[in-house]
């Protein structure tokens, strides 16, 4: 049986908006990752300074 033809919901030309929205999302995701990294490094420094320190996110 032949595959039914797909009818896309969005008109041609809408990809530009998708790309811009994704670029914005990517910036926010990278900023969130930066914060996570800083928190991880703080935890590592605390753990190095205090052998009894319990790492929050092992």
């Amino acid at each position: 049986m032949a595959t039914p033809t797909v009818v896309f919901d969005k008109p041609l030309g809408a990809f530009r908006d998708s790309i811009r929205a994704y670029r914005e999302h990517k910036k926010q995701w990278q900023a969130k990752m930066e914060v996570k990294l800083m928190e991880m490094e703080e935890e590592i420094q605390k753990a190095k300074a205090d052998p009894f320190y319990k790492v929050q996110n092992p």
Partner: protein
Amino acid sequence: MNALDLDRLFLDCPYPVRKDGEEYSFKTDYDIVYAVSFKDESFFSPIPAYWFDLMNRSHKASPNDPKVRETIIRIIVEFFRVNPDIMLYMCDTANDQQAQRNRLFLRWFSGTEQSKLFYIKTALIMDEGLENFIAIIVPQQHPHLDAIIERFNAEIEMFKSDKPQ
């Protein structure tokens, strides 16, 4: 999006992959942490599509490490096993290195046995003064492969014929 099977990834990947919030991450032998994420894209609706994102979270220069490539490819293959749809990838524009990243991604992907299972195409588009390398990856067996490629190509042509905005 259907979640990746971590047990399967554990068995397949050279580096153990963990779920870290909404991301998947792994740490290399060189203490570099990579994060992978997927984001829904509605442009191809009703066919599901997702943006694939990869980030070196440690900001340390990564040595040539084949285990990184293998782990990423395994993640992508597992993604398609549970989401046999459309994957989009846009190279990061940091330091104006997007062309090199695009070449590296293509080399990584095309150099694997699994790549034969997928259709992959990259396109360069200019938007808001930025060079954007965008890749689309679709399983060769996708029932709407031709329609998806046609739509992607038509959209890229529209970008090329448009004046910069």
